[in-house]
């Protein structure tokens, strides 16, 4: 039994990769190429994603056609904003590799690198 989150990620990945609306059947068939999965399970998780606001859907004949609400890039940009934005609490929630710098600070940084003769390595 896979975790709910993993199946959610798999469904979103399918839809983002295809870049078009798809039915649960299509998604199940795609997942089945890699491992067996039950139609009802995928349908349930797709409904959960719809309820959470990740997917929209419209009827096509008997089946629902699912579409992601936002692109993968849009979510990525929102995450980056959350991680690197100027919110006050972020320091404890998300630990950066390095802070962003102004042009003058970058110049000082480059100067520090040059002073030690490592500039050529960059």
């Amino acid at each position, binding site marked *: 039994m896979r975790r709910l*989150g*993993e199946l*959610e*990620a798999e469904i*979103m*990945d399918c839809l983002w990769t295809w870049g078009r609306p798809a039915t649960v059947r299509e998604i199940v068939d795609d997942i089945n190429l890699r491992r067996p999965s039950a139609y009802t399970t995928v349908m349930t998780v797709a409904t959960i994603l719809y309820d959470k606001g*990740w997917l929209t859907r419209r009827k096509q004949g008997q089946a629902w056609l699912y579409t992601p609400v936002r692109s*993968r*890039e849009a*979510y*990525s*940009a*929102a*995450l*980056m*904003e*959350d*991680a*690197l*934005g*100027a919110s006050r*609490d*972020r*320091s*404890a*929630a*998300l*630990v*950066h*590799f*390095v*802070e*962003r*710098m*102004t042009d003058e*600070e*970058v110049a*000082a*940084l*480059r100067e*520090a*690198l040059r002073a*030690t003769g*490592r500039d050529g*390595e*960059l």
Partner: protein
Amino acid sequence: MNAAPFFLGYAAAVGGLAPRLVLRSSWPQRSPLLAVAVWFALAASFSLCVALAALHLATPGAHLHGVLYSCRVAVGLEAPSTDGLLPALGGAVALVVVVGHLTAFALHAGRAYAARARHRDVLDKVGRASACSRATVLEHAEPAAYCLPGRAPRIVVSSGAVGLLSAEELSAVVEHERAHIHGRHHLVLAAAAAFARVFPRLPLARHLQEQVPLLLEMAADDRVLRRCSRGALAAAMFTLASGEAPRGALAAGGQTALVRLKRVLAPAHDAHPVVRWAAGTGALATFVLPLLLTCHAGLG
């Protein structure tokens, strides 16, 4: 004799003078984790003195049987020996100091935990596992890297960063974030934030909250250097710090990057054992001294 003025004076020295002493010395940059411990020893010492001063102020001339008594009063096991409003007030102040720290820490840690859980929920759908599967790659042109510490940690790098960094530089970035996660640095940051919340405007609190994050970055850098070259770490730092800056985050303290970079490029040995010993002992003494004073005041 009432010991309250001693404690207040002591607290003033620890809260105002001691930070300047630490800031002026060079050993913190050479032994960053020891420096973090020293900052927190000063913070603990200050809190203790404030609590003790409140207790002594509230029970003038009473027998204060040292720490034990103070602690018992603080946790409410024993009522202060004189009746009236003043002792109750002193006990309350001491209690507020203790409870305030715990509450501020819990609030900060709880909020950060919730923020991370929300972030991780989206990340797990949007991100892709990197080739070495030690990090999650986010589709984003801007070069950046960060981590979600705590339980179920994640290390995140943008595809822009993956494109700009060499394999060795990327592994230096991942190693740096792993150091944060393994060292549980987010809890240390929460403790620093809690102290600053309880004593806002206090120089010690201001410097502590400024210095501890920088020192933790240095400690993480040191761990990277055990496995990666100085050149790789410095290059990665430069690439990510100079990356296309998002609006609003432009002025976000790039000075720390410069300090870190200079430190990474100029190899320095750990602080001399004698210096480390002196700093550690000094910090411990600032904490223990008020406790001894309490005993003395109790006897006197």
